[in-house]
Every structure is written in structure tokens, then in C-alpha cells.
């Protein structure tokens, strides 16, 4: 009964989405009709929430007559995995997507007092139309509430053990919040195009939403990478596979958008470009959904199993992206503004950022689509892997770092060359430091030293300027946020370059009581014991790692899950700020020996910490006074209107 209620709530949400879209896009002037759109947005959220709760309920009470529950869950699962199993598969994760979409719309509606009423109505109309598309997709092609009656199984098939993990509980909601959050800048861009008005005020409104979505997307991607690192047992943290690329592409576009919006807000230029980026960023979110959900790029074969889903998304994509780009082509030309700036200016460096982001985007898009294009034309398969991406991303990353180091001292419009003196001092220090690190680590390539040196340079110029401004009085939160995000980027690239080149990996055969030496640490294998988890049995290897005076135990596991009979590798990781020691069990060999994979990964944490710092900077910028003051000014103006 409860699942039917959930289904019904979803149907109601779709009706409200249809109403909200029609009325919102018509954009009436009457306040009654405008508040009608607001109520329909509240309704969409409320009914999505009911539907999602109904699905969670079906999971918690083990209702295996619901097909999706039977496929994704099992009575032996701990309760928290039963809850998270709700978004472990396609249907449920899409329902989560809808709930998150509803939540963003609700958040926008709650802040609607900041914007003119007709603008709010239009934005909510566009969002409702998108939401209608999402809900219909769920209802018609991937309904999570379908029953298996009368053939309901006694127990479920179990959640994929890879997904029985803390990372999965939080990764999809964060990632989706980022994906879907980009719908708000998109809707604001479409509304602005419909009104034919794009100015600095519009950019200021849009920035808070774009920053927020970008920060959440950053967190989501970092979390996914961290999850892959400890759960897949390969010791890698980024694989350039199509699913990862699908999340990386909107991130690149959103990063460009966040910067371009800043120019539009402060200087009133880059307008059409900003609009295009807002449309592009969300389009890549949708493309990501297409890639992940249809499977067309991972394997054409898995796609054939479910053609109607892919066809639906492809049509939806064609309508949404084609429609918005046509609108852009027709209307964006009205917003040209000629504002001059010199090479040594913030504008120009924002442009450098944008160009690098867009080139990166093109590289990832090519690397993801080329295999399918090749297959479509020749029928053969090619695989584009890490070497292709490295060939582009190493030089692009270095260029970006180099440009970034100058950013703190730049002014809008033009910068006097004298201020660069401090930058050169910092450059001297970082070349020295980079060289020293190079000498100490002796990496194979000069590029590593370059990356480290440039990162240090970025840190020095940013820290110096922040220190200087703090000394002169209060510094806006947006400036601190920008500095933190840039420091995070430097931290991340330093981590990436060191961990990618300085890691030690050894795949060895170890018998009990034998030892190996891993990057100066003694690793002793004591043996394997059997342990029992809530829904699996495991062989647990016991390793003692001795590093000078410090000694600790690592216990990697080989798990056998009861329900599906799946075997999973659970790595034993000693996480450290400076380095990780990572051990995973391979196969048992004769005589109690095991195939063991031991890794020593310096600075691998910096990759994720850097990303988190970037995200934190993005969120901090949202809380700048400049955006809060706006609301009070609006309230004051409304007060005046009522008085007069």
C-alpha cells in the first residue's frame, strides 16, 4: 500500500510540475497567479518527499514484492545500508535526483523575496518544466515502485557489495546536489534571455547559486574519488572512465562559469559568454545523466538491454539543450557591451581561466565520445586511456598554475607593473623550494618539480596578499573564499603530481611471518584469520608495519558476501597527512601464502583535501555581505512601496 502511495505522490508531483511550468513560463503579472507558481513549487517538493520516503519505507521493512527492493536489498543488510540501498540502483537514484531538484526549487522559492517577482516566476517555470521531464522519466521508464506480484521472492538479491559502504551513503546525494544545482543558473540564464535583460545585478543573483552548486559538485567528485581509492582495491583514485568524466565535464564548465560570472558582476562584460557557460554547465549535467544511465558510452551492448530509457534521455537532451541554445542564438546578441581591459588585468586572467577550462572540457569530451564515434563509423573499438588525458592535462594544469600565481595582485581593468615585484620575489623562493624538493625526491621528470614549484608560488602570492589585506582592515568573505579555493587548487595539484610519480607499488607473494620493505617501512605478514561481519564472512590478513619507532597493524580483508556470493577486497589503509600505506589481499596461494599488493602513496590525501578546500572557499564566498545586503535593500524598498 505504501509503495502505491509513493507512486501516486509522484504522479501528483508531475501534475504540479506541469502546472508550474505552464503558468511560470506564461509569467503573469497578477500577484495571485505568481504566488500560485510558488505553491506549486512547494507542492512538487512535498510530493517528491512523500514518494522518496515511501521508497525508503519499502526498503526498511524489506518489502521484496517491490521489484526494485528485491533487486537492491536483502534482509541481512544492516539498516543504514537498507536506507542507502534506496539510491544504490538506477530507479531509486533517479527518485533521489527528483527530490534534490525539488529541494533546490524550494530553496530558490524561499529566497524569492530577493528577486523581482516576474523573474522568480519565470525561473521557477523553467525549473518546473525540467522537473516535469525528470518525473515523467521516472514514471514511464524507471519506476521504482513496480511490484513483483504474484512472484515476489522470499529474500532480495542484495545490494552490490561495492556499494555497501559509507562513501555510497553520501556520495550520490552530494554529487546529485551539484549536478542538479546547476539547473538554477541554467534556469536563470533562460529567464534572462526570455526577458532580454542581462546585467551586473543578474550576475550577482546567479553567483550565489552557481558557487553553491559548484562547491557541492566539487565535494561529490572528491568523495567519489576517495571511495574508488579505498573500495576498489586498486590503489588508484582517478581512472578517466566515462562515469568519472561525466561528472568532471560539468565541473569544468561550472568552474569557468563561476569565474565568468565574477567578471559580469564586477565589470558588466562577458555577458553572452556567461550565459553560454550557464547553459553548457547544466547541459553537461544532463549529458552525464545520459552517459551513466543509458550506458551508451561504457558499452553499446548494455545500452541495448534498455533502449527506451536512452531514447527518452536523448530526446529530453535534444529538447532542453537544443531549445536553450536556439534561444541563446536568437537573443544573446542584444547584450553586447564593450569594456576595455589590458593584458595585466583580472579580466584577462579570468579569460585565461575560461579558455583553459573550455579546452579541458573539449579534451574530456573528445576522450569520452571518440570511442563511441569510432565504433559507430568503423565498428571497431578503441580505448582512450590515461596517456591521452595526461598529454593534455599536465601542460594545461601547469599553465593554469602559472596564471593563478599572478591573480592576487591583479586589479580590474589594468595593473601597474610595479606590483609584480612581490610576485617575482615569491617566484624566486618557489623556484628555490621546487628545486630543493626536486633534488630531495629525485623524480624522473622535471615536470613534477615544475608543478611543485608553481604550487608553492601560488601559495606564496596568495598568502602574502591575504596577509597584506588583513593587515589593512576587514577583508570580504568572497576574497577569503577565493584565496582558499586557489590554495586548495595548488594543494591538489601538488598532491597529484607527487602521488602520481612518487608512489611505490609492490605486488608480492607473502607467506606467514615473512617481511618486505616498502618505502623504508618494514611490512610483516603474520597470517590470516577468519572474521564474521553482519552479512559476510571474511578472511582478514594481519600485517604489522614498522616505521622506525612507530609500529601499527593493518587488516585488509577478502570478503565473501552471503546473499550474492560476491567476493570483495577491502583494503587496509593507514591514512596520513603526508603519506598512506595501503595493503590489499589478492588470492590465496599454496602453503598459507597470499598474493599481496602493498602501496606507499605520498600526499595522496592532498588530492581530496585540496578539493575540499576549494569547495569550502566556494561556499564561504556565498556568505559574503555583498549578497546578504541585497536582501535588506529589497525589503527596505518593499517597505517604502507599502508606505506610499
Amino acid at each position, binding site marked *: 500500500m505504501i509503495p502505491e502511495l509513493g507512486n501516486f505522490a509522484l504522479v501528483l508531483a508531475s501534475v504540479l510540475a506541469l502546472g508550474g511550468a505552464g503558468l511560470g513560463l506564461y509569467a503573469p503579472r497578477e500577484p495571485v497567479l505568481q504566488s500560485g507558481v510558488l505553491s506549486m513549487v512547494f507542492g512538487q517538493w512535498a510530493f517528491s518527499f512523500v514518494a522518496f520516503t515511501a521508497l525508503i519505507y519499502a526498503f526498511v521493512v524489506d518489502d521484496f514484492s517491490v521489484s526494485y527492493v*528485491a533487486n537492491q536489498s536483502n534482509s541481512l543488510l544492516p539498516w543504514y545500508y537498507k536506507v542507502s540501498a534506496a539510491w544504490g540502483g538506477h530507479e531509486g537514484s533517479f527518485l533521489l535526483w527528483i527530490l534534490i531538484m525539488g529541494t533546490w526549487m524550494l530553496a530558490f522559492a524561499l529566497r524569492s523575496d530577493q528577486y523581482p517577482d516576474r523573474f522568480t516566476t519565470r525561473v521557477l517555470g523553467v525549473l518546473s518544466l525540467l522537473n516535469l521531464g525528470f518525473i515523467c522519466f521516472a514514471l514511464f521508464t524507471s519506476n521504482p515502485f513496480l511490484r*513483483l506480484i504474484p*512472484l515476489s*521472492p522470499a529474500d532480495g*538479491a542484495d545490494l552490490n557489495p561495492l556499494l555497501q559502504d559509507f562513501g555510497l551513503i553520501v556520495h550520490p546525494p552530494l554529487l546529485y546536489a551539484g549536478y542538479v544545482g546547476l539547473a538554477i543558473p541554467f534556469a536563470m540564464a533562460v529567464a534572462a534571455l526570455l526577458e532580454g535583460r542581462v546585467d551586473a545585478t543578474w550576475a550577482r543573483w546567479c553567483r550565489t547559486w552557481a558557487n553553491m552548486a559548484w562547491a557541492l559538485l566539487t565535494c561529490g567528485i572528491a568523495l567519489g574519488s576517495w571511495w574508488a581509492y579505498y573500495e576498489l*582495491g586498486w590503489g588508484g583514485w582517478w581512472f578517466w*572512465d566515462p562515469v568519472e568524466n561525466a561528472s568532471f565535464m560539468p565541473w569544468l564548465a561550472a568552474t569557468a562559469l563561476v569565474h565568468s560570472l565574477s567578471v559580469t558582476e564586477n565589470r558588466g562584460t562577458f555577458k*553572452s559568454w556567461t550565459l*553560454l557557460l550557464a*547553459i*553548457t554547465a547544466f*547541459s553537461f549535467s544532463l549529458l552525464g545523466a*545520459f552517459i551513466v544511465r*543509458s550506458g*551508451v*558510452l*561504457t*558499452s*553499446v*551492448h*548494455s*545500452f*541495448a*538491454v534498455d*533502449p527506451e530509457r*536512452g*531514447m527518452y534521455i*536523448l530526446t529530453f*537532451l*535534444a529538447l532542453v*539543450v*537544443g531549445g536553450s*541554445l*536556439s534561444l*541563446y*542564438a536568437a537573443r*544573446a*546578441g542584444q547584450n*553586447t557591451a564593450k569594456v576595455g581591459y589590458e593584458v595585466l588585468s583580472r579580466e584577462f586572467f579570468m579569460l585565461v581561466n575560461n579558455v583553459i577550462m573550455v579546452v579541458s572540457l573539449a579534451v574530456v*569530451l573528445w576522450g569520452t*565520445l571518440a570511442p*563511441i*564515434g569510432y*565504433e*559507430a563509423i568503423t*565498428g571497431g*573499438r578503441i*580505448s582512450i*586511456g590515461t596517456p591521452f588525458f595526461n598529454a593534455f592535462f599536465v601542460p594545461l594544469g601547469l599553465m593554469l598554475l602559472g596564471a593563478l600565481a599572478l591573480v592576487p595582485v591583479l586589479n580590474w581593468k589594468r595593473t601597474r607593473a610595479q606590483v609584480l615585484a612581490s610576485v617575482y620575489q615569491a617566484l624566486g623562493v618557489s623556484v628555490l623550494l621546487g628545486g630543493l624538493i626536486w633534488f630531495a625526491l629525485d623524480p624522473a621528470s622535471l615536470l613534477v618539480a615544475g608543478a611543485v614549484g608553481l604550487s608553492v608560488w601560488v601559495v606564496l602570492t596568495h598568502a602574502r596578499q591575504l596577509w597584506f589585506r588583513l593587515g589593512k582592515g576587514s577583508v570580504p568573505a568572497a576574497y577569503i573564499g577565493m584565496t582558499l579555493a586557489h590554495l586548495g587548487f595548488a594543494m591538489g595539484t601538488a598532491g597529484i603530481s607527487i602521488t602520481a610519480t612518487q608512489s611505490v607499488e609492490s*605486488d608480492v607473494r607473502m607467506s606467514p611471518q615473512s617481511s618486505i620493505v616498502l618505502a623504508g617501512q618494514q611490512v610483516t605478514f603474520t597470517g590470516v584469520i577468519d572474521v564474521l561481519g553482519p552479512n559476510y564472512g571474511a578472511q582478514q590478513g594481519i600485517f604489522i608495519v614498522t616505521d622506525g619507532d612507530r609500529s601499527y597493524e593493518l587488516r585488509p580483508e577478502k570478503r565473501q558476501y552471503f546473499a*550474492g*556470493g*560476491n*567476493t570483495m*577486497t577491502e583494503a587496509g589503509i593507514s591514512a596520513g597527512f603526508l603519506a598512506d600505506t595501503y595493503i590489499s589481499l*589478492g*588470492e590465496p596461494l599454496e602453503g598459507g601464502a597470499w*598474493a599481496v599488493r602493498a602501496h606507499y602513496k605520498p600526499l595522496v590525501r592532498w588530492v581530496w583535501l585540496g578539493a575540499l578546500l576549494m569547495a569550502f572557499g566556494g561556499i564561504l564566498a556565498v556568505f559574503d555581505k555583498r549578497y546578504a545586503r541585497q536582501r535588506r535593500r529589497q525589503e527596505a524598498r518593499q517597505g517604502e512601496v507599502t508606505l506610499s
Partner: protein
Amino acid sequence: MNRASLFVPLGVFVLILTLGYVGFDLGARSELPSALINKPFPEFNARLLGRPEQSITRDDLLGQPTLVNVWATWCPTCLSEHEQLMQIAATTDVQIVGVNYKDRPDKALRWLAQFGNPYRWVLDDRDGLLGIEMGVYGAPETFLLDARGEVVYKRVGDINPRIWRSELAPRLLQLGVSIAGSDADGARQP
């Protein structure tokens, strides 16, 4: 700004969309003809994965029904069908031979160590030459050979529970392969 340049993004999008549609169309052609059906499996002489000093030929496959499964570590669908292959290896006595297609041996061995090895032999086809002989479209692909080495059935794409139940298990029974829990076992899956 030049008016026409505003249409560039739309043009790029239409191009990508067309590509997506072609890919979709290609995927929808799930029934790919095999020139090998009811013909003898091609002669080959291939080295074993991880044991390059040892090689096997077509004659080694004769005398009993064989499943020849083309896989690679770069193929996510192969990973998703792997569980089904493990189950077939555990519940039937059919011999399963893997062809590691256009792959790196070290990666492949690691993959087998991690996810389990359902194969009696794994042939090392890193340059894809055997794949050309077999007329492989992509990975995964699976051929069913009878005891005389003739191709009885070919599946392009993964062996999922549905394919196993409706297409593969009945043919194995026909060839006299015993399936644990008798013929009902194949159909018992939820």
C-alpha cells in the same frame, strides 16, 4: 560580437547529438549475425595468459562442449557479467575458455585475482588477432562450441541471468552438459 558566431554552440550540439543517436542506433542492433554459426571454430594457436611458454590450439577444445568468452579489463560490461560466469563455472561442468582481448596481461591477471577465475584456460590475445579470426565485434562476446568444435551459438554482449535462463542454459542441456540442481536451476533465479 558577430551574429553568426552565436549559432556555433547550437551547431556543435547538433553534431554531438547526431553522434549519440548513431551510437544508440548501433547499440539497438542487438542481433549481430555471426559468419561462424554452424561452422567450425577457427584454427588457432594461442599462448596462455601469464604462462607464455604454454600454448593451446583448437584441438585442445574438442571432446566436450566449450564456452569461449571474450573479455578485457577495459570493458565494464565484462565485469558485470563476471558473476554470472563464476556461477556457471560453479554449477555446471561445461569448460569455459577466456580470450583476453586487446588487454595488458598484468592488468588481466590482477583482475582475475581480484574477482575470481571461472576459466579453465585464458588465451592471451593482446593484439586482437584471434579476435579478428573469431569475428569479434567488441567485448564481451561468448561463443558456445559443441564437442566437435562447431559454433552452436554466439552472444554479443553480456551473459545476464535472462540470457542464461532463456538462451544459454537450454542449449547447454541439449549438448548434454549437466547443470547442478538439474534443469530447474537455470530458471530458479528471481
